[in-house]
Each structure stands twice: as C-alpha cells, then as structure tokens.
C-alpha cells in the first residue's frame, strides 16, 4: 500500500520554492505522436502494417520487416523483470525526486520497455501499464499494481505524473453557473483542499448561492473574465495559493454568419471565451509555472472546458464556434509554454450542454455533472484532452477519420 498523502504544512515564507524544473524534454517526432495519445488516456504502441508486430521505443519503420508503422491501442498488462533505484543523477528535475525507482517490463503486447514503477509493484509481478505524460508533456510508461491498492493514487512517483485534486487549491472561474458549481462539488469530493469560485457580479443573485454558502472549503472570489484588472487583482490576492485552474466560463448564443446574429454578441463571446482565457493565462500562468515542483500541493494544471465545435464550426452557433476555435488555439499555445515549466494544460471538449442556451438543440446533451466528472478524471490521470458526451465523442471520432468531411457535415 502507499502511505496516504498528508495535507501540506503551512509554508515558511522565507523558504524558497523548489524551482519548476521538468524532466529532460528532447524527443523524436514519433515520441511526440505517442504523447498526443498519452494525453487522451490511451495505451498505444506502434504496430507494423506489414507484419503486425508491436514495437518500442518509438521508431519510424518496423525493425522486423521495414514496414510502415501506425499507432494502435494495446493490452495494458506486463510483467516486471528487473528493477533499480536511481540514487544519483545529473538532471535537475530528478535530483529533487531521488531516490527514483524504475524497472524493465515485458509487455504482453510484445516488446520490453523501461518504465517508472509504482511503490506497490515487485519483481515478477503482473502489472498494469499506463501511458502517462511527464511534467514536461512527454510520454512515459508507468507500471501500476494489477489491482487497486490502498491509497494507490498517493504514490509519490505516480503523483508526479498526475494533477490529482487531493489537497490542492483550485480556482473554478465561473461559480454563478450550474457547471461551475458541479465542478466545484466534484473537485471537493476528490479531495481538493479549497475551491475558489469566481463570481463576475457579487451584487447580482444567482442559483446555488445557499449551497455555496453552506459548503466548507469553498471561497467565493470576485472574478470578471472580461475585465483585465479584475483578473490580475484576483491573481495578486490569491498569489501562489492556486494550484489548479479550471476555466468553466463560456458564453453561448445561437446565430449564423451572414444572418441571425449581431456583431456585439460575437464580440462578447470572444471577450469571454477567448480573451477571458488569455487574461487568465497572463495573470496566473507565471505563478503556476514557478510552483510546478513545490511539494504535495505543487501547481499542476490549467483545465479549459470548451466546445467540441472548436474543431469544426457549427451551423446555427457559428459565432460561438468561432470563439471556441480561438480558445482551443490559445490552449494549444499555452500548452507549449506551460510544458516547459511543468504545468499540464488540458481541454475538456463537450457537445451541447444541457442548459438554457441549448433549449432548441435536440438531445443528446451532456449533463453538467458529467462534465465535472471528466474534469476530475483529466486531473487524476494527468490528461491533455478528453471529449465528454455522445455528441463530442462522435464528432471527435469522425474528425479523426476525415477532418474536412466532418467540418462539412457540421456546417452544411
């Protein structure tokens, strides 16, 4: 079993924070392709189109027949053959995390591989492999016990690869909505230390006020994403006390491009959905990056809840989809910047949410509680991108097969 994680001690303001180093980052293009799948929670290896053999480490051609390789989901079981405890390193990140345990595993998929080891696995054990992302956003193999063990998530090596909410302080940007409140509730249930819930207009009443007031460990904070000063003031107040940001803000209005919409509506959508994210990133990003390796409640992640139509556009919600596309593009840029300082940037992509603005949209629509569960999963597994709900999953599958066809289907 793993030792249960203790809440972090109050920090001595005179002790310098551990700098946000990340593990060595240089990778091949093939390894980056593996990272994309790791970020989606898949366990993949390259498989040869000619001879069907799986191969590892990532290659550009099959070593058995020189055929072309493609990524394919693989069985996750393996056996641990050998292990070592690394006690000396010249790398700044791992120096802070020694001793570090690794091993050689025989994958049931075929190849052997060097992997990070959970504290509960021993030589000869059958293990369950996970493909995770390291703090620099690169793919890594992690060997877990085959069956759940007590406090398994609290294993110190595993926690390096996740952004688990336990004991962390989390800013959820829009506490006035059902989505923001459901996310807050799910995070607290997952062990979050504190949830700061943003409120763009503290004088205006909203649904859920009583629940918020009666729930411990929630702090309502003033936050208007359309106001640069409001965002930077909150960042100044909360300072280094935010470990995870979940951006639940979204402005959804129907409308087309040539008709059925007003420019002002699109401007508001851009201001909240795209510029709001930009303001958050600019005000909170540096402080997050500085604390990415700062112990139990190190800063860990920036999660953005966005629309799946960011990938295609959407007839009937054209302006909204455009703002979602801008938002997704900004997230991609932010992901690159934050990877160099050890912060995971993730998108939770949803189809139409079951709320007042999607009344005219036919089902299926995704429940806010389901989105909240996805946020927790993204954090616990250290993911980069998940699609929630039937609509989003279907669109993503079609997009993967034929992006331009999918764009056509969503707009014609």
């Amino acid at each position: 079993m793993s030792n249960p994680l203790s809440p972090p001690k109050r920090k001595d303001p005179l002790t310098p924070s551990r700098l946000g180093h990340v593990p060595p980052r240089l990778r091949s293009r093939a390894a980056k392709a593996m990272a994309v799948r790791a970020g989606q929670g898949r366990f993949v290896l390259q498989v040869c189109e000619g001879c069907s053999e799986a191969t590892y480490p990532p290659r550009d051609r099959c070593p058995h027949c020189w055929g072309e390789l493609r990524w394919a989901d693989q069985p996750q079981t393996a056996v641990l053959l050998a292990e070592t405890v690394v006690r000396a390193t010249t790398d700044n990140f791992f120096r802070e995390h020694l001793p570090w345990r690794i091993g050689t595993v025989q994958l049931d998929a075929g190849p052997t591989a060097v992997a990070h080891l959970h504290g509960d696995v021993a030589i000869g054990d059958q293990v369950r492999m996970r493909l995770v992302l390291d703090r620099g956003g690169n793919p890594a193999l992690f060997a877990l016990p085959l069956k759940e063990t007590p406090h398994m998530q609290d294993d110190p090596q595993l926690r390096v690869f996740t952004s688990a909410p336990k004991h962390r302080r989390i800013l959820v940007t829009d506490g006035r909505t059902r989505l923001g409140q459901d996310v807050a509730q799910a995070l607290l249930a997952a062990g979050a230390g504190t949830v700061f819930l943003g409120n763009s207009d503290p004088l205006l009443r909203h649904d859920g006020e009583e629940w918020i007031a009666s729930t411990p460990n929630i702090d309502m904070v003033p936050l208007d994403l359309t106001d640069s000063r409001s965002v930077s003031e909150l960042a100044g107040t909360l300072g280094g006390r935010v470990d995870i940001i979940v951006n639940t803000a979204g402005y959804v209005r129907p409308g087309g491009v040539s008709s059925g919409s007003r420019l002002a509506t699109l401007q508001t959508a851009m201001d909240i959905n795209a510029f709001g994210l930009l303001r958050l990133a600019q005000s909170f990003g540096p402080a997050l990056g500085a604390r990415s390796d700062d112990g139990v409640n190190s800063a860990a992640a920036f999660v953005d809840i966005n629309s799946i139509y960011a990938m295609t556009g959407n007839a009937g919600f054209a302006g909204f989809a455009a703002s979602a596309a801008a938002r997704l593009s900004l997230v991609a840029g932010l992901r690159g910047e934050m990877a160099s300082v050890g912060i995971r940037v993730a998108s939770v992509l949803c189809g139409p949410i079951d709320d007042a603005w999607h009344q005219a949209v036919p089902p299926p629509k995704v429940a806010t509680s389901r989105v909240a569960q996805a946020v927790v999963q993204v954090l616990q597994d250290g993911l980069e991108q998940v699609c929630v709900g039937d609509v989003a999953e279907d669109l993503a599958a079609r997009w993967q097969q034929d992006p331009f066809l999918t764009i056509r289907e969503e707009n014609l």
Partner: protein
Amino acid sequence: MTRRPAAYDGVAVCCPVTVPYVRYSPETAHWWAGAALSALGERTGLGPADIDGFCFASFSSGPDSVVGMIQHLGLCPRWMDHIPTGGASGVMALRRAARAVQSGDADLVVCLAADTNQVDSFRQTLAGFSRFSQDAMYPYGFGGPNATFALITDNFMRTYGVGRESFGKLCVAQRANALSNPHALMKRPLSLDQYMSSRAISDPVHLLDCVMPCAGAEAFIVTTEEKAASLGLAAASIKATIERHNAFPEDPIQVRGGWVRDVDTLWEAAGCSPEDMDTIQFYDDYPVIVAMQMEDLGFCRKGEVAGFIDRHDFTISGSLPLNTNGGQLSAGQAGAAGGFQNVTEALRQVLGCPLGDQVPDARRALVSGFGLVNYDRGVCTGAAVLEGAT
C-alpha cells in the same frame, strides 16, 4: 556457419600510445588527438606526410568528425574512417585498418581515440546520446548508463545466482593491477570490504562498479610488417577478430553479447583457445559486462561465471591477468579512448613494454570491445586475438 575470414598475413600492429589521463580538462578532443599524434611522432619520427591512413573515434569532437580532424591536424590520408561505437571502437578500428593495409589501400594507418572531459561534458554527452535513450531511457530518472546497467546487473545476478562478491573480486584485482600503472587515476589499494560497502548509485550498482569519466587519448599504428621493420618498431600480429552488432534483440534483458554468435569463428581462426591467452583485456564499463564476456568468449559456460571467478586470480601475477593497466574501472574512462585502452594495453603486454607490471612471458592476448548503450543494452561487440613475436 559464417564464411571463414581471411588471415591477417603481413599486418603489423605497433606503437601503442597513451596520453596520460586527467579527470577534467579544459582542452578539446582536437587537442588530445594532437597530443597522441605528437607522442606517436616522437616515438617513430613520423610526420603528417607519412600517415596515409587515419581511423578516428571520439564522443566530444563535435561538430567535427574524422573529416574535421584531419584538416585540423594537417593529415592528407588516402584512406580514413570514423568509428562511432565507443567501447567497441578500438577492436573495430584495428580490423578496418588491418584490411586497408592488407589490401594496399593504405600503408600506415594511425588508429586514434581522443576525448576531453570538461566539467559539464558528461551530462551534455548523455543528454544528446541517442534517440532511443532520449525517448525511452533518460526520462526515467536520468540515471545515465548506471541505471541501464543496474537493470542488466539486477537481472544477471538474479538469473545466474551471481553475488556482488564476484564483481568485487574483479574490481579488487583490477585495482591491484592499476597500482603499478603510473597513469591510473585510482592510486589507492582497494579491499573487498571497501567494494562491498561503497554507496549505492543505482541498485545493485554501487560507486565502485562505476568508471570515472576523464579526458585522455589512445593511439596505435597498423602497417605492413616490412614498414614496421623499416621504422624499427616492435610489432604484434592479429590472429583473429570478430565483431557483431545488435545481436539477440529478442532477449528481454541483455544476458549475453554479440560475441556468442561468432566466438567459434574467433577461436577457430586464431588457431588457439581461451586457455592459451596469457592475458585478457576486456571492456569493463561495469563488472557485470566483464563477467558476461568470460562466458560469451568461451572461458566458462553461461551461468557458471561465479565459480569461474572464484577459481581464478585476475592480478598480473595471477592465473588469468585481467585488464592489467587497471582497466577503465581503475585507470579511468576517457570516452571513446576507453574502447582503445584495452587494445593498447594488450599490445604493450605482448610487446613487452607495459605501463606498469609485465605479465610474465606474455605472448597472446585477447582484447574485447563492447559499446554504445543505444537504449537498454550495449549494441556493439568485438574481439581480437593479438600475438607478440616469439
């Protein structure tokens, strides 16, 4: 069965040169290479115009390969080669140069390895070493080769019932040998107790299982017997050589090297057997690899190395003198020159001019090379039997 390679008739190997190692050097690989050539020149009277073949190995000469090196050092060879295989580079340089000389593509080949060790070079060399290491080994704790060989050692000990004492005996013997070598970086005697209690670096690899990276250069000459005689250089002959790369990829963890595939060819071509070796100069980045070679090169059967080590004395006056200059474990590992120092030391022993103590009546030596941990194992292997004049 592999076609039997031609004999190395008429080929002379001579003039082993070691530029004394230092732990850290502000100089470049080019400087160290020049220092080796300068020592060769002093010994033989040869100048740049006399060298028509050049074979080079280095990890730290970047961005220069052998091309940059010959212009830098003013050579005008009609044959050259660059060997990027680290610990296997000495044996490989020897075989390539020998064939070039034998075929007449060159008359006199200088084989040279040089590496510097600046304060941060070890980390830098590691960080950019190979694609598989970058993708799939270094991000796992960044333990470098210590971690890779720890996994190999852990598995080897478990599989064949070998204890740390066996490795300790090898390290202790090599240290005893090093004490007579004035250039060895390690100058104090080593006891088995000290070996056993040295601190863990990457279990089960402990501090005294690891080589000390340093700067240095090694060189030797491969030429015709006539040319060697005309220069007045004592020369050894090559009885047989082998090399093999990426053997046994199906082994989940490395328990044997490519030697196994060609060991019969080696001894058949050499016309002698392991028992005929007066000294062995085995590549020794970690003692587990020395043990593996004892099995794979035919000194004992797979799985029986613990008993073999137990029965032998590996010091210079012992039953099987091993790494008589101290090897890399006690003399230091000067990058790619670590793959050459076993060749130069074997040459010295059979030519009767060792750096330290002489193995009594040494006539035949086995040299082995092992190099390049591209990912989870050493990929390149080689071996050569050298014989001095009777």
